[in-house]
């Protein structure tokens, strides 16, 4: 699982690490299928991804995905964005499946179990778990507690819950006593590893904003 929405909140340094590490035949769960030639697009270009499960593969600059997909070198499972988030949440919460009205009456509901509740039809969706989640957080402490920044939160907290191992790319560590317990979004119980990667380009633009 790889967090982020577009490039915001996407742990690019961890994806670089995955490319160096050499894992192959990967199934990637992410909202988008990469853009340009960095991050997920770079991982796919190295032909290390067998399958991608996502909601919006085709977007501006998703050239690597489109080439590989058209050449038959990449399997695609397309999932509506809310169903994707909820399938991941279900896995993290120990729920094997759930019913949703999303996709009812469309080709994506074909072959899925359906049921009527209070007169309205719903389809059964299964939980989606991963071996590894790579996420990005704004601030972390040594307990693994995470804060996010603005729209950089997106899929990161829910993915942290749904993997056997969650690795956080953190923009900065703070001492335990400086972390506000009321503000923590992802409690450290969901986090196994932290890699600190200061976000200098973004920090610079934030300084400019504050100035």
């Amino acid at each position, binding site marked *: 699982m790889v967090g982020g*929405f577009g490039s915001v909140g996407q742990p690019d340094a961890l994806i670089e690490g995955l490319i160096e590490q050499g894992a192959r035949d990967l199934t990637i769960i992410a909202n988008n299928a990469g853009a340009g030639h960095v991050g997920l697009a770079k991982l796919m270009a190295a032909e290390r991804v067998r399958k991608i499960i996502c909601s919006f593969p085709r977007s501006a600059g998703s050239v690597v995905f489109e080439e590989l997909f058209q050449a038959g070198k990449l399997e695609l499972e397309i999932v509506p964005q809310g169903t994707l988030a909820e399938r991941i949440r279900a896995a993290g919460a120990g729920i094997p499946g759930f019913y*949703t009205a999303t996709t009812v009456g469309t*080709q994506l509901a074909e072959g899925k179990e359906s049921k009527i509740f209070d007169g309205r039809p719903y389809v059964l969706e299964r939980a989606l778990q991963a071996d590894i989640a790579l996420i990005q957080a704004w601030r972390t402490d040594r307990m693994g507690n995470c804060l996010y920044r603005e729209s950089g939160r997106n899929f990161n907290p829910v993915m942290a819950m749904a993997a056997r191992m969650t690795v956080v790319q953190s923009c900065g560590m703070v001492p335990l006593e400086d972390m506000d317990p009321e503000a923590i979004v992802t409690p450290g119980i969901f986090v196994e590893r932290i890699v600190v990667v200061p976000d200098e380009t973004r920090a610079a633009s934030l300084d400019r904003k504050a100035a």
Partner: protein
Amino acid sequence: MVCQSRIGIPTLVADAIPEGREIILHSENGILGFGPAPAPDKLDPWLINAGKQPVSLNPGGSFFSHTDSFAMIRGGHLDLCVLGAFEVAANGDLANWTTSAQDAAPAIGGAMDLAAGTRRIWVATEHTTKTGTPKLVERCSYPLTAPAVVDRIYTNLAVIDVRDNAFTVIDMIPGLTREELQSKTAAPLFFEVPEYA
């Protein structure tokens, strides 16, 4: 009122809200109360909308995760969603995610969740495709996003309500005749608007 306006023509909604109307815009990537694009020197790389364009946050705005964002959508908490469309049928069927079962790279995003979960669905679209093919049709030929969900359509030519499995024109641009509008529409039109011509 809480509203979602989608990628494409609907992104123009944010700029068209008249002064004095408090419309809270929702973005599926975890923002309530986003505002217009900031000045180039105030760009914030952490703050984008669902179309991945830079936005600002209005006072009273909030950030949340995808889980909460789609709980708002699926749970029926949004009053209105404005989406683009490939086709809309007279019974309110919406097709806007793929043009065929063999489409190389379809793209759903949040459209199916919004179509199924929002109280009112408006479509904002050109009246025809670039080649002049009607987008308002008797039955959709493309795979559906959701059946019987569209309430109203805003095109470059007219405003059309979907009522009782039929298109009812409630406004038209000046100078356009009913016959011309009908010739660009592939389903019967009913009119509740005087001709300006």
